[in-house]
């Protein structure tokens, strides 16, 4: 823990680095069972932050606290402060006092894109997977949707592979293609922050590598928070690293990211 805290960059001493995510004293409980306890976390306006931890350490819950997705689960109670930069500087995601106004959930979740562990395609065609959220959630006029679908697919390198299969069910794509489609769908909604919950966990090596390369490129434009339990992947991708254990933040690394072996050792200790 000591060597980790030495690496923690104090935000106040480096005002040049703009924060995009700021989590303070976050506590999340489900039906009285505390899953996150006094968690602090922050991320830069661009760059790839990786959260690692063993199963049940609270990584996914932390991620879901950022777009208030935990609230879709029964018995969820959240305390603490979560602020995100969604285009107007850091703003509270949860109301901090009775009657305080925050962004509507639909708008918040559109601006905080999320990709899940299992490719989660909608039960419609490849093109509709992007077009319907664009139309319903983003309110894009029908005349622009075709171009936006193409741009989103091109951004994830899927256009060449699916240009002649746009009308086929999205479920007919391979796992790696489906995951890239999910990423394209999130990008099409023009998010301010991208969250990825073990995005390569269900993919083969080649598909996982394609997604990792894609994330590295996207990190230059978006703040990315990636949950992973793979030390090799964490060491490869992380520009900042957070290690979680038993619902708490165990260690933070803002530079000198440890190698896969060291991360594995940290996870073993956790």
């Amino acid at each position, binding site marked *: 823990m000591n060597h980790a805290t030495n690496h923690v960059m104090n935000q106040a001493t480096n005002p040049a680095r703009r924060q995009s995510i700021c989590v303070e004293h976050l506590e999340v409980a489900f039906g009285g069972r505390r899953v996150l306890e006094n968690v602090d976390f922050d991320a830069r306006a661009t760059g790839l932050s990786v959260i690692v931890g063993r199963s049940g350490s609270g990584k996914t819950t932390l991620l879901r606290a950022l777009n208030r*997705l935990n609230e879709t689960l029964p018995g969820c109670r959240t305390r603490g402060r979560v602020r995100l930069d969604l285009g107007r500087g850091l703003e509270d995601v949860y109301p901090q006092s009775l009657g305080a106004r925050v962004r509507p959930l*639909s708008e918040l979740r559109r601006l905080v894109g999320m990709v899940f562990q299992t490719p989660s395609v*909608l*039960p419609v065609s490849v093109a509709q997977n992007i077009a319907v959220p664009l139309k319903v959630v983003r309110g894009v006029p029908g005349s622009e949707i075709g171009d936006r679908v193409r741009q989103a697919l091109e951004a994830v390198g899927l256009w060449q592979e699916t240009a002649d299969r746009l009308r086929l069910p999205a479920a007919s794509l391979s796992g790696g293609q489906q995951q890239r489609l999910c990423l394209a769908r999130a990008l099409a909604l023009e998010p301010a922050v991208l969250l990825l919950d073990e995005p390569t966990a269900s993919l083969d090596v080649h598909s996982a590598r394609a997604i990792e390369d894609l994330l590295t490129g996207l990190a230059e434009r978006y703040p990315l928070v990636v949950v992973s339990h793979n030390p090799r992947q964490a060491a490869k991708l992380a520009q900042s690293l957070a290690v979680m254990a038993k619902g708490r933040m165990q260690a933070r690394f803002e530079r000198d990211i440890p190698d896969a072996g060291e991360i594995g050792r940290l996870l073993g200790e956790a």
Partner: protein
Amino acid sequence: MPSSGSPDIPDAFAAPSPLQDAQAPVPEAVQESAQGVAQDLPVLEAPADPGDGAGWGARLAAALAAGGAVLLCLMVALAALPALFGSGGESPFHWNWHPYEGQFGILPMCAGTLALTAFALALGWPLALGLACWLLCEEAKFLAPLVRFTAGLVRFMTTIPTVVYGFAAVFLLTPLMRGCFGGTGLGLATAGLVLTLLILPSMLLTLEAGLKPRLEALCPWGQALGFSRLQLLRRFVLPEAGRTLVAAAVLGFGRAAGDTLLPLMLAGNAPQAPEGFFASLRTLSAHMAMATANEVGGGAYNSLFAAGCLLLGATALASLALRRLMAGDTCASGKARAVQETPRP
């Protein structure tokens, strides 16, 4: 190694059943066949396990139940044959029920059944769909207790005896209808309103059972895109749930057409073709209950069996259609779950 499915491949090389243990050691016979001597091997068959038998008691119970149902259908059909084919006197398929004049037409009752069932379905099906959507999609936390209460209430409604609905309606709804619209207060509208209440829980539970797995398969990741649960239901679940929607309607039809007590207590029971929402009518089921108590033979007897046969045929068809629809629907929603399922904490 030759691929499975080729005509010269022994059954031992067929794809293993999912129930077979993947870790089980490969039988010696199979190992040999893999070396190219499979053609001489006998077909491997698992010996019947005497422990798999259901037992004679259970078999007897099944035979008695199935035999009883088949006998009932046979008896109704055979007894109705003379009336249906006109061999037992006058055909019952005309519009006059005047027993004392020897006229036993059941068409007014057929029309009454159709009218009342259509009324209850036209009101009940959209109501059930709207209620199902609300129960599945309400996201306001302060309304959660109301959602739980309503869901519990609907389940409780399935246990209320029909006679209680009828009894309450005779003393509460009938005077209201009489005061508002005149007449006796007994008629299509009164019986239809209460019949709607009766069939509502069955349709709602069918809709909920069909729609919920599909919707849950899209949550929470669909919500992470910014969709509300209602948008997910409207955009992605309902367009794929035609079978569920039809199944709920078929179930409602079966229940409404087959119910006896409510039409008997609330529809007025005049053996005439439906003339309006507030006019008296008689359904086939109510007609059978009333006429059986008075008529014991002759043309009336034959026409009652014809009515019973029609009713049995209609409800049996509804039941068969429902089974087919639900079987297809279960497969579809199972596939949806398998494809869409995401882990939850």
